[in-house]
């Protein structure tokens, strides 16, 4: 090809540079930077930057050469003909390459096996540990001990082991049942006054905090995936993706009428592990 290629540097030189729009772009950019330092509101900053970028786009659009022409070439093949791009295809299909691929896959496999072995060998513990022990008092988020007689219907959203307020995995929901007395499979020895029960707050589905207590059905409800537990019947799941009950905290009253754990959780809290 002779002369100036469309869109080449030489071609572009002959086009008028859109000075006006360029100036707008520069001005808006300066405004944006100044605005950041002057503490302009977000909307002003955003609009200035958007404007600057759009102006840049216009400048680039003006400057660029003619739209590249479509190249069209005949597809001369008939079914079964030798392919056009055989050279490239052949280059890829050489045995050397295959060996590399197989070698790579083999390496990956060995690596994965070693990883699995290492992980399995590193041993496992007995699940998450909570701060609940025999004789640990239940306290509110403010650290106040709780008198059994003070637990309102619907109960306290979240209570903690004394000394470990906000220890994530030890969170417990304390409920005074609204519609009925607790019945099996609730462990009745761990219920105070027939209606006060405490369960781990960590959802047995995937570990979200069980958030809601519905008084009309005495059910505990997890907002993450709608798991529902029957608080009057040992918090067995009644709907949704959780397969196991929320573990029940053995509950008792000390000599002064304060709620206290009579033991730690009997079953591991939180989701089932693989």
């Amino acid at each position, binding site marked *: 090809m002779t002369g100036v290629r*469309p*869109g080449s540097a030489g071609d572009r030189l002959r086009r008028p540079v859109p000075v006006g729009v360029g100036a707008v772009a520069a001005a808006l950019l300066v405004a944006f930077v100044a605005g950041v*330092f002057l503490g302009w509101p*977000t909307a002003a900053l*955003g609009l200035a*930057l958007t404007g600057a*970028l759009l102006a840049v*786009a216009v400048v*680039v659009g003006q400057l*660029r*050469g*003619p739209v*590249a*022409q*479509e*190249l*069209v*070439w*005949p*597809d*001369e093949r008939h079914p*079964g003909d*030798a*392919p*056009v*791009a055989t*050279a*490239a295809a052949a*280059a*890829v299909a050489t045995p050397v390459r295959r060996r590399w691929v197989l070698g790579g896959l083999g390496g990956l496999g060995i690596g994965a096996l070693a990883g699995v072995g290492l*992980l*399995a060998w590193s041993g*496992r*513990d007995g699940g*998450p540990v909570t701060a609940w022990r025999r004789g640990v008092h239940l306290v509110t988020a403010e650290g106040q001990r709780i008198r059994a007689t003070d637990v309102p219907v619907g109960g306290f959203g*979240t209570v*903690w082991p004394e000394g470990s307020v906000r220890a*994530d*995995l030890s*969170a417990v929901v304390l409920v005074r049942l609204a519609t009925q007395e607790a019945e099996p499979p609730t462990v009745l020895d761990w219920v105070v006054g027939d209606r006060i029960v405490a369960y781990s707050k960590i959802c047995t*589905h*995937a570990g*979200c*905090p069980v*958030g*809601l207590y519905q008084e009309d059905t005495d059910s505990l409800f*997890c*907002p*993450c*995936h*709608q798991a529902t537990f029957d608080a009057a019947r040992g918090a067995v*799941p009644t*709907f*949704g*993706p*959780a*397969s196991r009950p929320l573990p029940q905290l053995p509950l008792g009253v000390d000599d002064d009428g304060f709620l206290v754990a009579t033991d730690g959780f009997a079953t591991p809290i939180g*989701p089932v*592990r*693989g």
Partner: protein
Amino acid sequence: MTVQEAPARPRWLRELFVPTHWSFLLGPVAVVSFVVLLLTGVVLTFFYQPSTELVEYDGSAALYAGRDLPAAFASVVAIEEDVPGGLLLRRVHRAASYLFVAALLLHALRVLLAGAFRGRRFVNYLVGLVLLALALALGWTGQNLVYDVVTGSSVRIGYTIAGSIPYVGTELADLVFAGPDVDDVVARLFWLHVLLLPVAFMLGLAAHLWLVVRHRHTVLPRRRDTGGRWLVAVPTGVGLRSRAALLTALVCALVVLAATLVPFGDVTHIGPFLPGVAGNDMYPDWYLFPMEGAILLLPAVDVTVLGATITNPLLGGVLLPVLLGGAALLYPLLEGLFRRRSPAEQDLSEHPFHAPVRVAFVTLLVTVTVLLSLGAASDVLAQVIGAPVATVIRVLRGSLVVAPPVLAVLAFWYARRRSRQQPA
């Protein structure tokens, strides 16, 4: 019309030929948004504090004055309220992440539908799938850095899903999440998000682009009046730089405008994650909906086989994504077995209608993904429709069984009819 032979094997980008179709811009859009993410991410890193330790908030947000907040959350509030342009910066980072993932997903869909995975391009298809997985991981780790109510739960769910894998799950989860107490998790996710995953993505991207140049783009065929076909493309060599600059400017403008108008991920009104506190409207970013929906919609399962406990998080959070990803990975191999084409034919960007089985497969994949995503929003759907959540969930469960195969068959018939009306 210029009739000219395209070089069989381009040595560099200028010799690359690109079909004139808008869908070939999806990849470049993803690349530009990735660059925006890198730039904004680096700036965010100066102000963000990867720690869950409680600190007393002393910034200018009245809502949190004097309260104890996790340091990470406090630093995000500070970015919004006290760093000049910080709110815009956060929103641009988040908006760019949405465009990034969306463009990648659509790009993958285009490659699938056009059969651009065939022959030697299969290797690059695999690289692309890895990039997609890395992008989702980047998004997930990023949104969890905020450590608000949503991300606190999201970390828990991630830990559970990893822990549900038989035999090695617990160890794996403790390794990735720095232990079951999720206290140090933000520091762990921080390094994944700002260093490990971006570097991995950049390496993968380099390989991906190198392979695109090496293998060339697939080319669009056009029917010839005299019978047979033409192959049509534009050379990237002409005006490559100015077109790239134009696309970059436009994508950046779009992202900044969106960030100006929409309060993406503003944190001021969502509370911090504090142990024992649950929120009601808790949703991860939209691209995680399929996984969230999967563990919501699948029923409770609890069976032990050979010492491995199979649970809902394992089926929905591990098995289903692996199945979907595996289907996308294996489909090209299966198609290659049953639908043999010459290497030259594989260089063409096929119209999807000419491969009805492929259309059916993509329909299946998309329907499952969409239904699972709806599942993640079943409480919102229930509110909108005015039905109980349980009903919505049951309907979605049913649809998940019935709709994908039915729609796939319909798509197959439709594509085949169109293909007969208009042969290649």
